[in-house]
C-alpha cells in the first residue's frame, strides 16, 4: 500500500524539472545578448497549469481504481505539473523565437510602397521615376506614379545599368549585352551584336560602361542612338579572378571592383589598379558612399565589412560587424548603413563610430529583404520570397540622414 503522502511527489519532481529547465538550459548565446524578455515561458506555464490542473481539481474522483493516484488531491497536482511543464516548454520556444526575431535596436515602422512582381527579382536597376526589376524568369519596368508594371519577357539578365541621358538601359547576360529603351518602357530589348557577355555591368558615365566578366572588366564606349547602338571596347582591366560587383564613383574615373578575395580601386581612364585590400569574408555585394569615403561589403551570414575608402591607393578594412545574422545587401549613405537582413528584416546601422556600429532601427514590415540598393530618390528593397519590390524614400521617417538617433515618433 502506498501511503497518501506519495501523491505529492510528482508535483515536487516536476517543479525540480522546471527549475532545472529554467537554469540549466539557458537561451542560446546569440539570443541571450538581446533577449527582449522571457515572459512567455512563465505565462504559458501558468496557463498550462491552470488549464490542466483546474479541471482535474474540480473533477470527481475517478470511479475506476487505476492506481494509487485517483483522488483529485493527487490527480490535480500531477495534471497541473504536466500543464506547467508543457506550457513552459512551449513558452520557452516562443521566447527564443521572439528573441531571435529581435535585433538590438528599436522597431522601425516604415511606410511601405511595394510592387508585386510576377517573377523572383534578382537585381533592380533604378531609373527615373521607377525601377527595372530583373530576374531569371522575366523583367519588369515599374513606374512609381503611373500604370502597372510593364512586364517583359527578357529572361536571365544578370545585371543592368541605366543611362538616363540616353534614355537607355543596358543589361548583361553571359551571352551578351542587351539594350532597352527607357523612354518607351521597352521590355523586349535586343542583343547588341558582338557585345561581350558578363555577370555584372556598371555605368561609368553617359557614354561609358564597364562589363564584368570571367576575365575581369571591359570598359566599353557607347556609340550611336538606341536603334543603331554599338559598343566599342576601349580598355580592359584584369581583376585576377571573376569580379563579384563593381561600384563606380560618380564624377571620377574611379571604379571599385570587388572579387571573391579582394577589393581594388581601378582607374578606368588608364586601366590600371590603384590599390586594393584583402577581403576576409565571402563577399556578395558592395556599396560606396563617395561623400563619406565609407564602403560596405555584404557577406551574408559572415556579416558586414566596413571599409575606409577615402584613399583609393590604400583602402582599409575598418571593422567586420556580425551583429546582423544575414547581410544579404547593404547601402551606405552618410553615416547610415541600410542592410537587407533576410528574415531578420531591414536593419539600419549607425556608423558614427565605424569600429562600433550600432543598430538604430529594425523594420519588419518589408518581408524578407533579400537586397537593397540606392534608388533615384531613396532605396530599393527586394523580397525574393514574396516577389516584391519596395521603395523607401530617404530620409526614413524618424531617422535623420546624419545618423542621429532614431526617436520614437
Amino acid at each position, binding site marked *: 500500500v502506498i501511503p497518501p503522502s506519495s501523491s505529492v511527489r510528482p508535483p515536487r519532481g516536476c517543479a525540480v524539472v522546471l527549475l532545472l529547465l529554467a537554469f540549466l538550459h539557458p537561451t542560446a548565446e546569440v539570443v541571450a545578448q538581446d533577449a527582449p524578455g522571457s515572459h512567455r515561458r512563465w505565462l504559458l506555464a501558468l496557463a498550462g497549469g491552470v488549464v490542466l490542473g483546474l479541471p482535474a481539481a474540480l473533477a470527481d474522483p475517478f470511479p475506476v481504481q487505476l492506481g494509487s493516484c485517483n483522488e483529485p488531491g493527487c490527480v490535480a497536482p500531477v495534471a497541473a505539473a504536466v500543464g506547467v511543464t508543457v506550457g513552459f516548454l512551449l513558452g520557452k520556444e516562443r521566447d527564443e523565437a521572439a528573441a531571435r526575431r529581435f535585433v538590438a535596436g528599436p522597431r522601425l515602422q516604415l511606410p511601405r510602397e511595394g510592387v508585386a512582381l510576377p517573377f523572383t527579382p534578382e537585381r533592380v536597376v533604378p531609373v527615373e521615376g521607377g525601377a527595372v526589376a530583373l530576374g531569371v524568369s522575366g523583367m519588369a519596368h515599374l513606374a512609381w506614379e503611373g500604370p502597372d508594371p510593364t512586364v517583359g*519577357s527578357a529572361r536571365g539578365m544578370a545585371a543592368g545599368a541605366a543611362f538616363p541621358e540616353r534614355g537607355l538601359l543596358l543589361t548583361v547576360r553571359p551571352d551578351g549585352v542587351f539594350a532597352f529603351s527607357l523612354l518607351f518602357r521597352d521590355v523586349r*530589348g535586343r542583343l547588341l551584336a558582338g557585345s561581350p557577355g558578363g555577370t555584372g555591368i556598371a555605368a561609368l558615365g553617359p557614354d561609358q560602361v564597364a562589363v564584368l566578366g570571367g576575365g575581369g572588366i571591359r570598359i566599353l564606349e557607347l556609340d550611336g542612338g538606341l536603334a543603331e547602338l554599338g559598343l566599342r571596347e576601349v580598355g580592359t582591366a584584369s581583376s585576377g579572378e*571573376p569580379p563579384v560587383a563593381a561600384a563606380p564613383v560618380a564624377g571620377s574615373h574611379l571604379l571599385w571592383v570587388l572579387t571573391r578575395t579582394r577589393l581594388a580601386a581601378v582607374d578606368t581612364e588608364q586601366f590600371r589598379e590603384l590599390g586594393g585590400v584583402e577581403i576576409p569574408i565571402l563577399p556578395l555585394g558592395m556599396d560606396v558612399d563617395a561623400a563619406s569615403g565609407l564602403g560596405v561589403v555584404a557577406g*551574408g551570414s559572415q556579416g558586414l565589412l566596413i571599409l575606409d575608402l577615402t584613399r583609393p591607393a590604400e583602402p582599409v578594412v575598418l571593422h567586420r560587424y556580425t551583429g546582423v545574422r544575414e547581410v544579404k545587401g547593404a547601402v551606405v549613405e552618410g553615416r547610415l548603413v541600410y542592410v537587407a537582413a533576410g528574415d531578420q528584416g531591414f536593419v539600419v546601422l549607425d556608423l558614427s563610430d565605424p569600429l562600433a556600429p550600432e543598430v538604430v532601427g529594425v523594420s519588419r514590415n518589408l518581408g524578407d529583404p533579400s537586397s537593397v540598393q540606392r534608388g533615384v530618390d531613396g532605396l530599393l528593397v527586394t523580397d525574393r520570397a514574396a516577389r516584391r519590390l519596395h521603395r523607401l524614400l530617404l530620409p526614413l521617417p524618424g531617422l535623420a540622414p546624419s545618423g542621429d538617433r532614431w526617436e520614437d515618433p
Partner: protein
Amino acid sequence: MRYLLPPLLGALLWIWGIHPPPAAGAQSQEARAAFREGERLAQAGDTTLALASIRRAVELDPAFAEAHFRMGVLHAGLSSGEPREFRERLSARGALERAIRLDPENPLYLLEFGKLLLRQQIRVDAQRVFQRALDLGERADASTQAELHFQLGVFRETQWLRFRERHRFPQGLGPLSEARAVRDPMYVWDVLERSYTFDGQGEADRESMLAHFRAALAANPAHAGAATHLLAYHYEVGALDEFMAEAQRFLAAAPGEWRGYLALGLGLHVLGRQEEAAGSFRYGVELMPPEIRDDFESVARILPRDEAELLESLEGEARAEALRSFWVRMDPLLLTPANEYQVEYVARMAYADLRFGLPEYGIPGWRTDRGDIWVRYGAPERVASFSPTSGGSWEAAHRITTVWSYGRRGPVFFFNQNPGYRQAAFAGDFRSYARELRSVESARFDAPTLASLISVPVQVARFRSDDGVRVEVHAALPLDSLLPGGGGVLDTGVFVLDARGRELHRRVQQEVVVAGSPPVLVRSWVAELPADTPLVVSVEARDPVSWVAAASRERMGGIAFPPGAPSVSDLLLAGEVELRVPGPRRREDFRIRPEPRLTFIPEAPVHLYFELYDLLPDPDGFASYELELSVIVEEIYRQGPLRRLLGELADRWGVSEVGEEAVRLRFRREERVVARDVIPEYLSIVLDEPPPGRYGLSLVIRDRNAGVELVTARSFQILEGEGPAPESPPR
C-alpha cells in the same frame, strides 16, 4: 628536509629519464616497429596484414594507445552500416574504447569513436562524444576540429530539417490517410493547404548548424562535408548569391572536389546559365571516381523499368552510345548548345546528393528514396512534415511523416523518418506506388531556360535525289507567340538526325523579324540525305532575349527509291500548285506553296504534289498507271461538351460521317517515260462542305506494266478561318 625534497625528486626523475627500465623500453620499441609496419601495410591497402601487425604491437605494449586507436579505425573501416555485420564494429569499438581509456583527452580518438557510434546509430552518445572532443579543442589539429564541427553541424541540421517544414493539422483534420492519399492526390493537396505552420521553428538549430559549418570551414576550407551541407542550406533558402560565392570559394580551396563543381553547376543552372552549368557538371563528372561516375551517369533511374533493364544490360561502348543517343533524343532544343533536360537531370542529381546523401554510410543522395523521386519528378510543389503519432501503421508510429505533393493531380509521396535521423524511406505502400507510377510516367522535366516550348506545325516530304533522298521541310513558325511584342531577332534551325541521334544535317541562322510581320513565318529547307534511313527532323526557333522557343520533332521511317523498281515520293500538300512550264518534268517546273500546318479552310482546294519513279515502260516507252485517291473523315471537331458527347455517340453507332469516304477518285494515266524516270504528278481536290475535322488522304498507284502497287498517305485537317500560309522559298 623539505628543502631537500625537490632536488631529490628532480634527481630521481633525471635518472629515470636517462635510464628508463630496460625491459619496458625494448618492448615499446618492438611494439613501435610492429605498429609502423602495420601503418605501412594499411597504406598499401593490405588491411588484414596491417591489423595483424598492429595487433602484435598491442600485445607487446598493451598501453600503446595509438596502436589501439589505429586498430579501431581499421576495424571500423571494415565494418558497414548493415545491422548484421556487427563483429567488426564490436572489435572497432573495443579498440577505440581502450585507446580512449589510455588517452582520454585525445580529440582524434573521440572523433573516430563518435563516428563509429554514428554508424551504430547511437546518435545521442555520438553527439556527446563529438562535443567532448570539441571541448578539448586545444589538442585537436585543424582537420580534426573541422570534422568535429561538421559532425555537430549535421546533428543541428537534422534538427533544423525536422522542424523546418513541420506542419500541424487544424482541429478535426488529420492525420493523413496513406491509403486515401495513394488514390486521391487532391485530398492531400487540400489537407496541406489547410494545415498550418509556426514561424521560427528550428531557428536555434539553424543558427547552431551554420555556426558549426562555418567553423569547420574556417578550420579546413576544403572540408567537403561542411561545404556541401552549407551549400544545400543556401540553395534551399534561396540565397543564390551566397550559394554561388560559397561554391566558388570551396572550389578554390578544393579544386579537385567533384561535389564543388556539381554545386557550382547547380547554381548556374538556377541562374539560367545553362552552358556554363553544363561545363561545370561535365568537369565534376570527370573528376568523379569511376564507380560513382557510372552510377551517376546512368539514366536508368528515369526510365521505365523495362527500358532501364535494357540499358543496365549494356556495357562499354554500347552503353555509352545508348546514353548519348538517349540524351540527344531528350534534348528539347538542338538549337542551344546545352541540353536543357540533361542539365536539369544532372542538377537534380547534384541537389539530391547535397541534401539526401549519406556519405558516412556510402549512400549517394540519388540512391535514397527521396533522392530517387527528386531526380525523377523534380522539386515538389508542397512539402510538409508532421510530428510522430502513436497511431497509424506500425512503421509510421513514432516516426516523422514527410509529404511531397506535386500539385492537385499528384503524384504524392509519403516518407517516414525516425526523429533525429537523416534517412527517410517510403511510407506504407508508397514504394509500390512509386514503382507503378514509374511505368506510367517515369520522369518529368522542365528547365529554367525553357520559358515555354510552343509547337511548330511542320510538313516534311521526301523525294528521290541523285544520291539518296531530298527532304523538304516546311514550317510555320508562330511569330505571334515567339515575339509577342513585335519585331526582333529569332534564332531558327532545322536538324535532321538518324535513329541513333547522330546529326545528319544542321542549318542554323538568325532571322530579323520586323515589327508588323504576319503572325506566322513560313520557312522551308531542303536537305540531301541518305536513303533508307529512319529520320528525326527537328524544326526549332527561339527568341534569344526571352528564351521563348518553338519546336517540332517529326520521326519517320526510312524511305528508299531503289533504282529500276517503281516507287513513289511522299505527298506534299499545298495551298497552291502552279505550272511554271508546260509539260513539267521535275519539281522545279512547278510553283508550289506548301501548307506546313496541313490545314485548309472548308471548300478551299487541297493541292497535292508527288513524284513517281521508275515506272516500267511498255515497248513503246509509255508508263501506264492507275491512281486511286481516297479521303476519309477520321475525326470531326465538335465545339462544346454536349456536341462532343453526342458526336462521340454518333461516331460509335456509325451514324456520323466519321469513317466515311469524303472523296474517292480513280483514274488511269499514261505517260511517256523515255529518257526519264521521274513523273511529277499534281492533283487538286475540293471537298463538298466538309465539316471541320481531321481527314486521312490515301493514294494508291498501280503500275499496270509492272503489276506493282504503291501506297502513300497523309493526314490533314479542315478548320474554319485558317487562312493560307504565306509562301517562302526553300533554303
